[in-house]
């Protein structure tokens, strides 16, 4: 495991920001860290990167216990915080900004690397523009470039696409995927689920400071909806056909319109063959036979709602 968090907790007085968080991330993964605002994502990332110390628990990076004093380890990761700090030397140009960090991280051939990175996110034309004139989206992109500038092994991205326009989102997504292809492990926190779904294979859902679920993204969805919902469209559906279908042993529920059926199959076994066979037997030729899959968004809402209900 390249990143391992063991029972991380952080409390501020009576308030518990993070409680016994366990995470395991393998080398080369893009790991999604999901949760609503205030769930504890940023606190967890700050602990993982040594910005704030945990109240209890420990962080292992590259298989070794990590402490913020460990300069060598800090050189091996890049961080994009949720917000670019407002007071950060606004008199710098984009080029000077990256040159400073290249100098700080001792990047070899900084000029070429900076030009290459600026080109990748379409910022090469604003290299000499002062960063105080940058939009939030441009600053966010610059912040991501800063994090990848020294080619780190791990990237911690806290809400990297918030505030970006669709083109910016695509550019950042491509950049993350490209960095991952080059072998970097990426931990990306976000509440924009469609994006996480597109790039992450594994992840965790955090809510109220606790990890509610960790594993494959597809597992989140299947856990939410073990039953399959099938939508069938045909030229004509006979009257009261829904009652007929509901009487079948493998059908949990059914609703029918004049040309449309929605059938919920029971259990975890795949009964699609049985259903289509029955429909053909009844003279109904489906023009559409579609399985409705729950989205990550459904899973996320369901998991976080469940947590809230449990707490209440």
């Amino acid at each position, binding site marked *: 495991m390249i990143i391992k968090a063991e029972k991380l907790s952080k409390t501020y007085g009576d308030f518990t920001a993070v409680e016994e968080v366990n995470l395991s991330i393998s080398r080369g993964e893009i790991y999604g860290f999901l949760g609503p605002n205030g769930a504890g994502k940023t606190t967890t990332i700050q602990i993982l990167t040594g*910005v704030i*110390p945990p109240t209890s628990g420990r962080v292992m990076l590259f298989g070794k216990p990590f402490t913020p*004093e460990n300069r060598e380890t*800090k050189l091996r990761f890049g961080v994009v915080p949720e917000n670019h*700090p407002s*007071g950060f030397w606004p008199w710098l140009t984009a080029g000077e900004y990256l040159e400073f960090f290249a100098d700080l991280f001792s990047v070899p051939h900084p000029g070429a690397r900076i030009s290459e990175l600026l080109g990748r996110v379409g910022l090469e034309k604003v290299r000499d523009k002062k960063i105080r004139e940058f939009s939030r989206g441009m600053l966010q992109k610059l912040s991501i470039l800063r994090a990848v500038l020294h080619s780190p092994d791990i990237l911690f991205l806290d809400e990297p696409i918030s505030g970006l326009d669709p083109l910016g989102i695509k550019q950042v997504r491509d950049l993350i995927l490209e960095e991952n292809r080059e072998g970097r492990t990426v931990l990306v926190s976000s509440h924009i689920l469609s994006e996480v779904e597109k790039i992450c294979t594994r992840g965790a859902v955090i809510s109220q400071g606790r990890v509610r679920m960790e594993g494959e993204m597809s597992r989140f969805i299947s856990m939410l909806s073990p039953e399959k919902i099938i939508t069938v469209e045909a030229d004509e559906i006979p009257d009261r056909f829904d009652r007929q279908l509901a009487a079948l042993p493998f059908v949990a529920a059914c609703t029918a319109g004049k040309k449309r059926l929605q059938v919920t199959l029971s259990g975890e076994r795949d009964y699609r063959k049985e259903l289509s066979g029955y429909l053909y037997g009844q003279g109904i030729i489906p023009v559409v036979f579609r399985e409705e899959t729950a989205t990550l968004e459904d899973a996320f809402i369901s998991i976080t709602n469940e947590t809230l209900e449990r707490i209440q």
Partner: protein
Amino acid sequence: MKALLKMKIKETAYNPGFYITVTIALVLSHFLIEGFVLCVESSGFNYAATPLYGFIGRTLNGIFGPAFTDRVFAAGPFLFSSAVSFALCFLFLSIISIFRFCFEKSTGVIEFVCCGPVDIRRYGTAVFFRDCLFLGISSGGIIIYNLTSAAAANLVFGPGDLVFSLILMAAGIVFFLYGNLLSMLASTAASALLSYLGVFALFLMVLTAGYADAAGYMGNLFQNVSRFLQWFSPLFYMQSAVKAFFFLRPLNLVLSFLALSALGGGIYGAVRMAGRGKGRFAE
């Protein structure tokens, strides 16, 4: 840290406030030197001859007594003017540095920069070196101005004036370390600035207590407290060094510098510890 220091130097170099302060300090220095020359009469130095020196003389008399005042003015025109112009530049640099450090801490700039090979202690060290550099530049400017004035008005800017400037710089550097420590510990810029000015005022009071007559229980108590606090005050060592120089005691001068360095080392150690502990980031 070199990259960070370069950036910190740029930060102050781009600040017009620094140049304005140095200009004001030099203008003030000009008036003080000119006023001093006007106070020199055939009978000797008469500070009541000009309203400016009349005010300064009465104030110093009130606080330190006539013996001290006479000694200050006997040292020539540059001692007092150097101290005033230096104090102005030093206060500007330390206030702006504390304010900026706390602002950067609260807005996440330090956290942002420290997500890399530097930590807040190295950040603080870069800020300290930057402050020392600009204090050196402003002191250099004041010395050059004084040398030019001396040449133009046929006055003597002697080794005593030069050594006094060095003593001022050394004390200023230790005060920067106090500022650095308070910036690390305080949660807001206002609290850091207030505590810094408080420490500065306290040490000034401790210095003046040495000249005041102790009377009654409170007077004795204040004297005793002052005697304890003076060991933590750069002004105390500065005063010892000045005395040692004017009374030609080189060993005492060296010891004063060594003690000041030891105090600076102690505060630097405290800064490092504060960086490791709760002063790491505003949480």
